[in-house]
């Protein structure tokens, strides 16, 4: 049988190297050792190397080279013409490297300026698409539309029409929640007003409340994030203990 990338012996050594790297990096938790430094620099080197590789294989080849020289017909695919004008981007790009010259480094600002322009233009273009719905969604009804029950009735066993009715009415409790929602939004906003120092008592307290409620949001984020971090650690440990040690070394 030909030795493939799935060959057990190869896989074993691959995983072993992975495990070694794991321990090497974790050693920094104890202190910054030579062991860590070695893996850190290897990491940086590999990363840089991969960036260069990907620069050609993932980006320039597809987006520049093929467009420049075109392609022959292949399979069911018809040939693509080459657009010679793409060559003109090279000198423009290399203008950026004038940054190392003391005399002409202003030229490097041309390509960079263009990139900045493109970036900020797109930011303006997508601004409302991104934040509009969020504003739109902050508009809630603060007056209940029905008074028959304060709480939202149970949805269990309700038929579609009833569900729709529940979904489309604002009950007293919801109205209260919406008021809280609105207050939260406004108080946090008030905390981020910079052009004035709030003098009157109400606004002062609102600002303080805004900061406190922010902490609620942060707390929730923290709680949610802890799960991810632990999940990733667990996965690493799973790799080291189960996938490598138990399954490969102990062959269980």
């Amino acid at each position: 049988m030909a030795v493939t990338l799935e060959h057990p012996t190869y896989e074993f050594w691959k995983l072993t190297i992975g495990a070694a790297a794991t321990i090497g990096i974790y050693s920094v938790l104890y202190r910054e050792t030579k062991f860590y430094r070695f893996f850190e620099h290897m990491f940086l080197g590999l990363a840089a190397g991969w960036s260069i590789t990907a620069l050609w294989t993932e980006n320039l080849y597809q987006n520049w080279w093929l467009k420049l020289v075109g392609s022959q017909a292949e399979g069911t695919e018809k040939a693509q013409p080459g657009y010679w004008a793409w060559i003109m981007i090279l000198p423009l790009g290399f203008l950026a490297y004038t940054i190392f010259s003391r005399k002409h480094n202003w030229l490097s600002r041309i390509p960079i300026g263009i990139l900045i322009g493109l970036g900020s233009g797109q930011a303006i273009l997508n601004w409302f698409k991104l934040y509009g719905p969020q504003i739109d969604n902050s508009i809630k009804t603060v007056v209940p539309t029905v008074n028959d029950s304060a709480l939202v009735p149970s949805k269990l066993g309700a038929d579609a029409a009833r569900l729709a009715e529940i979904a489309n009415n604002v009950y007293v409790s919801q109205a209260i929640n919406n008021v809280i929602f609105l207050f939260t939004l406004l108080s946090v906003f008030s905390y981020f007003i910079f052009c004035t120092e709030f003098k009157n008592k109400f606004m002062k307290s609102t600002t303080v409340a805004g900061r406190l409620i922010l902490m609620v949001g942060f707390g929730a984020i923290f709680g949610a994030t802890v799960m991810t971090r632990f999940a990733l650690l667990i996965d690493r440990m799973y790799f080291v203990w189960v996938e490598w040690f138990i399954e490969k070394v102990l062959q269980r």
Partner: protein
Amino acid sequence: MQYYDTGKYHVFFVLVLIAFLMFNILRARGGKSLFIRRIAGLTAIDEAVGRSTEMGRPVLMVPGLSGLGPVGIQAVRIFAYITKTAVKFSTPIRICLAEAALYSVAQEIIKDVYQAEGVPEKYDPTSVRFVSDRQFAFAAGVAGLIYRERVAAAFLMGDWFAESLILAESANAVGAIQVAASTVTTQTPFLIAACDYVLIGDEFYAASAYLSREPVLVGSLVGQDWAKIAIVALVIGLTAVSSVDRRVSPQLCLVDENGKHGQALKLRTIDGALVSEEKEEFTDPRYPDQQFVKTVYRPVEIRPLEDNRVKIAFTEQGKVVEKDGVFRNRNESETWSKTLFKPRTPDPLFPPREKVQEDTSDSTNGGTNS
């Protein structure tokens, strides 16, 4: 496209915000002095730099993974100010970047700072360094630098992602003062947990204005406040409107049947009365032997008009009735308002265009090759 995606008024709204910004920028440029309130975290900068001067250890500045964009450049502007202070005490600085383009900008800006302070010879080009554009390689590299050079102050400001805590805790471990700011709200709590001073949210954009007091920046900061107030006003106003009219005027709204997609839409007025309803027997392929009955609410036609108004035709006791009404996203479970923005049904206002002959569409359009 925005006209159809979000309606004219939304574009108008953004234009208003932009107008506020420009107006205030011009006003400030015109020499009008504007007030900015104190921002707590920023007063710590001098303290931190001073401390690292005493200890003779470098000041570390990292803009996270920010690329060449608003955030990254904003961060570098703040670093420029910090560098200015550091140059005064000739404290060594380290700026670690994760993007090549931003690296070149930062190098320029920092070099200019040394020039402006009259000590261009003191500028060490390796003090501004590109570490890696790969998130965790970057984190590993900067963490290593923190441990090796035992930085005395760390400024972590910009687009922070998972790596934030790695750097914050490493810096904490070597006992550095840390001032942090993140535009990525999900990372702020960790910076709060691990750092000494944190600029929350918008304070990051306020910082450079606060520090440099440049008219343009101050003006735009005031403009930002106006814009925020405008947003608040919009929210309050529309809340009031919606609360009232939702209370009094019956409106149309579409309900997606038990949350599933691609199902018949139900049409009812806001006071709960059904507009059009048919009972329908159906079988589910999964249970061939059983018959189910469901009520189907099927508008005949939904034609979007401008700014969220739609005309709806539906059958009422057999005959077709037309109504039009305003649609606003009333409760989060509803998602139709998004689909209403872009009409699915061909719009009668736009009769189909005539077709061009095939395959003359390519070339003749420099390099577009779409």
